[in-house]
């Protein structure tokens, strides 16, 4: 029997590190977004300087999140990258197909509530999760 030498910095180890990094930046971005959204009203009483600082922090953390996400995708192996990109393609499609009519309905006052970009973000998040789960199960 030929013994395989296990790699110290193998795929699983690298992807775990990369996932943790992405999760940390996701958390930081959610916190920075919350600060930017609620800070002006509840913390610094709409002071413009602090609001601009919060927006700057949110953008800086957002850029770091994008870089962490890019690094994560680069670390994925070819099958997992395929699953990821398929899920991303479905998400972008759903966002465009659902987002434009949603905007039109809001413009003409058809919606019984105020349309918010947050609804689209939630839809995109759920769509990506479902599409990714489907892709993962398909190749299991």
């Amino acid at each position, binding site marked *: 029997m030929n013994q395989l030498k296990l790699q110290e910095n193998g795929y699983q180890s690298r992807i775990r590190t990369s996932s943790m990094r992405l999760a940390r930046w996701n958390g930081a971005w959610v916190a920075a977004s919350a600060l930017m959204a609620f800070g002006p009203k509840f913390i610094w009483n709409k002071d413009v300087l602090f609001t601009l600082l919060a927006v700057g922090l949110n953008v800086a953390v957002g850029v770091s999140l994008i870089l962490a996400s890019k690094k994560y995708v680069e670390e994925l192996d070819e099958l997992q990258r395929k699953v990821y990109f398929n899920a991303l393609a479905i998400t972008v499609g759903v966002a465009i197909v659902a987002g434009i009519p949603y905007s039109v309905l809001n413009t003409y006052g058809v919606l019984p509530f105020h349309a918010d970009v947050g609804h689209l973000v939630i839809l995109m998040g759920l769509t990506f999760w479902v599409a990714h789960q489907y892709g993962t199960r398909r*190749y299991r």
Partner: protein
Amino acid sequence: MKNRLKVLRAERNWTQAELADALDVSRQTVNAIETGKFDPSLPLAFRAARLFGMPIEEIFHDPALDADGSSPVTEIRKDTYV
């Protein structure tokens, strides 16, 4: 594309996880290749060939090829160009 990855792995008593680690991919990817659900890229196929110490065509096989190794598709193309 068909392949002999599962047989070669079993001959060496390697687990899917061990093979995945040696090929620097996930276990899910090894499983998907073995079950024919996913065709590997050329670099990954070459890595597998290097690992098993055999030519790539002895691991991966195009079902379109005949038993004698000739491709019916290639033959048709030759006729078309003549």
